[in-house]
């Protein structure tokens, strides 16, 4: 049973700076069902006194435990009372009780949370401890202990449960207030004419509205469940008052005589909790960012025919022709790369240049066969010397080529390594797989390789976890991982962007050096023309998914043909400066 408030991990996950977009609940059939069901119950419970219902308290001992009939559409209970009528009469207290808990939680939690986040200091710490305390108490034990003190009372139980639920609202409001304060701290000086608390207030309301609505919906379901559990344990309103939990308890006593009696109340209770959960889920899923595209879920409709193809020149290692990469979507397919053609010679360093969104990374990933789902290559060829057309390779075939023919270095070294394993635990299996080494030989190879990428104290590095490395060290480790299988082509996707300026030059020098010693080709994906000028011999310029210019680097800077290239060069101050100096 979800008896305690939602765990803080779930709560904090839903907090974001992005603005809450209220999704159309009506378009989600499950949420629509939930809205209609709860709406129906609200209407019926309000209209109960005027509806032509039978008296929920009217006993008829000659007609007990009846199955549904025209007279009693859901049958009768142990005392011959009409079950349908009792369920409807029990709806209002059930909904009001749950609402009481939710309102208590909202008011208490939001107030304490905002104050804690705003005031900070000891009050903030105390509020956090208060939430921790509540999260570690089983709700049922607390409610039963209070029932022992105060006697059974729905109002006291539901207000107390509201206090328990308030912890999750508190966390939500607290985290959001702190985030808003941090955000506004810098801006506050610029803003004139508004008091800070007022600005914070409006920001918080805007930021928290979505998660809070989700929370209201989900905690409403939990409160219904708890209230029914208390009724079932005999702590609800005293008989003969109709109460859902109490009715299920009565039915369970007559289970051998008339099992049907279990069904109506239980189904209504379950459907009501389900409705609250469905509405909450729909809002959460609708407002949350779509799940990140995963490289593991891929289109596997490949022919799997991989045979060496004729290359246009013996010097060519890679020839991309007419490549189109498409992300299908219901609102129309988006072609992130369109009819791209370029080639990479053996031993050459080619730069793939463009702004973010120009399609350069997608071009690089399609060579690796690692396009994020649901992106696919919809046309064109990627010919790799002595291997064949990579577009046609099956996932298993690509897996054998990755690392051994083509290596990849990612943009963010700090997140490119698995945080749960040491460098040794990640590098050694890779070396053993590619080079067929035993454990000892792999370790020796790892030490040698790490030395080659410019790391000192290699034994310390091998024993380190990624979070213990600096960005530059992590990028060198990532390069070592990529080189473990001696690939013929290394794809470096913005390898220096996330690094300190002082470290950048070192990584570029290393790449140039490795290119020479390993006789590799390198594709360097970058937005930085400084990097291009530094390492590449040829550049392929991309804009909006298309290649707009291909030239040697000296040609490119001397006489850029395309308008876009000229604007890129103009936007790179160091190049403009150096040109001015030359001139």
């Amino acid at each position, binding site marked *: *049973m*979800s*008896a*305690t408030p939602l*765990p803080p*991990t*779930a709560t904090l996950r839903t907090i974001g700076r992005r603005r809450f977009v209220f999704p159309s609940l009506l378009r989600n059939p499950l949420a629509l069902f939930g809205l209609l069901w709860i709406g129906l119950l609200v209407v019926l419970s309000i209209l109960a006194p005027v509806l032509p219902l039978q008296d929920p308290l009217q006993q008829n001992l000659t007609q007990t435990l009846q199955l549904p009939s025209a007279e009693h559409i859901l049958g009768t209970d142990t005392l011959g009372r009409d079950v349908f009528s009792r369920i409807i009469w029990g709806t209002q207290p059930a909904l009001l009780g749950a609402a009481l808990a939710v309102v208590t939680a909202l008011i208490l939690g939001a107030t304490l949370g905002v104050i804690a986040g705003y005031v900070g200091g000891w009050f903030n710490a105390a509020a956090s401890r208060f939430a*921790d*305390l509540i*999260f*570690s*108490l*089983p709700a*049922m*034990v607390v409610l*039963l*202990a209070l*029932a*022992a*003190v105060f006697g059974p009372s729905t109002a006291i139980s539901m207000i107390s449960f509201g206090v328990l639920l308030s912890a999750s609202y508190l966390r939500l409001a607290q985290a959001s207030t702190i985030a808003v304060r941090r955000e506004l701290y810098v801006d506050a000086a610029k803003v004139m004419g508004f008091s800070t608390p007022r600005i914070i207030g409006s920001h918080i309301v805007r930021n928290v509205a979505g998660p809070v609505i989700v929370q209201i919906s989900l905690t409403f*379901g939990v409160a219904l*469940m708890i209230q029914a*559990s208390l009724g*079932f*344990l*005999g702590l609800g309103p005293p008989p003969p008052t109709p109460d859902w939990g109490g009715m299920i308890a009565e039915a369970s006593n007559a*289970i*051998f005589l008339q099992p049907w009696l*279990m069904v109506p109340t*239980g189904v209504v209770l*379950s459907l009501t909790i*389900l409705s609250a*959960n469905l509405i909450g*889920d729909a809002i959460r899923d609708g407002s949350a960012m779509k*799940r*990140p595209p*995963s*490289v*593991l879920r891929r289109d596997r409709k490949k022919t799997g025919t991989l045979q060496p193809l004729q290359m246009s020149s013996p010097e060519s290692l890679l020839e991309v022709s007419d490549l189109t990469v498409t992300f299908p979507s219901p609102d129309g397919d988006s072609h992130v790369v369109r009819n791209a053609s370029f080639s990479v010679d053996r031993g050459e360093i080619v730069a793939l240049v463009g702004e973010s969104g120009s399609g350069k990374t997608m071009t690089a990933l399609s060579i690796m066969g690692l396009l994020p789902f649901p992106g696919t290559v919809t046309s064109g060829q990627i010919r790799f010397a002595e291997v064949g057309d990579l577009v046609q390779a099956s996932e298993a075939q690509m*897996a054998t*080529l*990755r*690392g*051994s023919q083509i290596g*990849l270095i*990612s943009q963010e070294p700090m*997140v*490119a390594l*698995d*945080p*749960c*394993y*040491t460098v040794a635990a990640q590098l050694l*299996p*890779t070396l053993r797989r590619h080079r067929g080494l035993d454990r000892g030989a792999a370790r020796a190879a790892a030490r040698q390789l790490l030395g080659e990428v410019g790391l000192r104290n290699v034994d310390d590095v091998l024993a380190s*976890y990624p*979070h*213990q490395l600096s960005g530059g060290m992590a990028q060198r480790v990532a390069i070592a*991982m990529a080189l*473990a299988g001696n690939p013929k082509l290394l794809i470096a996707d913005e390898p220096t962007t996330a690094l300190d300026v002082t470290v950048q030059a070192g990584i570029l020098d290393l790449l140039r050096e490795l290119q020479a010693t390993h006789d590799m080709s390198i594709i360097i994906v970058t937005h930085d023309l400084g990097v291009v000028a530094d390492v590449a011999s040829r550049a392929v310029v991309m804009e909006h998914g298309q290649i707009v210019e291909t030239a040697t680097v000296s040609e490119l800077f001397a006489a850029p043909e395309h308008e876009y290239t000229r604007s890129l060069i103009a936007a790179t101050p160091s190049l403009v400066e150096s040109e001015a100096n030359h001139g």
Partner: protein
Amino acid sequence: MLKVIGRRLAVAIPMLIVISTLAFFLVSIIPGDPVVALLGPDATAEEYARVRAELGLDRPVFVQYFDWMFALVQGDMGESIRTGRDVAPTIIGRLPVTVSLAVIAIIATAIIGIALGLVSSLRGGAIGRVAQVGSVVGTSVPNFWLGILLVLVFAVNLKVLPATGYVPLDKAPGQWAAHLVLPVTAITVAAVAAIARQTRSAMNDVLGRDFIRTLLATGTPRTSVIYRHALRNAAIPVVTSLSFQFINLLSGSIVIEQVFALPGLGQLLVVAITGRDIPVVQGVVIVTAILVIIVNLVVDLVNAWLNPKVRTS
């Protein structure tokens, strides 16, 4: 290891003191004269005096508090107002039932919930959607109602499992297990659903991270990427939410013990409420808090094993 235990105890001990203090003050918040409230208006003067002395109400409140805490530290939780028996041994006698329920339930929750979450994360399409809707339905069915339905189907109609009751583990292990199947199922369904959702979202989160691409780019086999790397990373938030599920399962077992007539802490607590047997209630509150602390400690240790950042910081 010792650092992890130390950190947990530094949180747990103050928390236990706070909870014990709150439990102590349960008596003071009883409306009116607690002794009259506890015994009703018809008791004799001697009975009032006995209970007043038993609760220590004839002394200043802070003297009562320190006496009570001092006794508690020595494992003395006072005597039951109704039965006159010592509370601590009574609770210890009931503990195996509730602990069996909750511990089996949390283990089943971890195994089934993580497996289902993994499947629904890796398999898109129809299976994924069924798993998603199933997990919402699973969290929406009240455990006590589900428990009764299970009795109806498996005990009354199919007659394959006993309907109610409890057999101690050391008397007949087979019977012990048979008596726990239905109650454990009843409280586990919702927890499994919650953990499956958590696993699914954690896996989706991890599979979108850069290091997965790095691993694939070095030619690491898919199974190794999923089970050795992605699952281990995804397990960190899942283990944390397992500790919250354990607290929910304790709540669930209190209710479900009524359905299956299991002589555990829940039953003790429900009987104590009707008798307003405050010392028993206080004892159960404190023992539950200790159970939660033990489980949180286990979770901390598992997390330290999973997550090097916890271990090395």
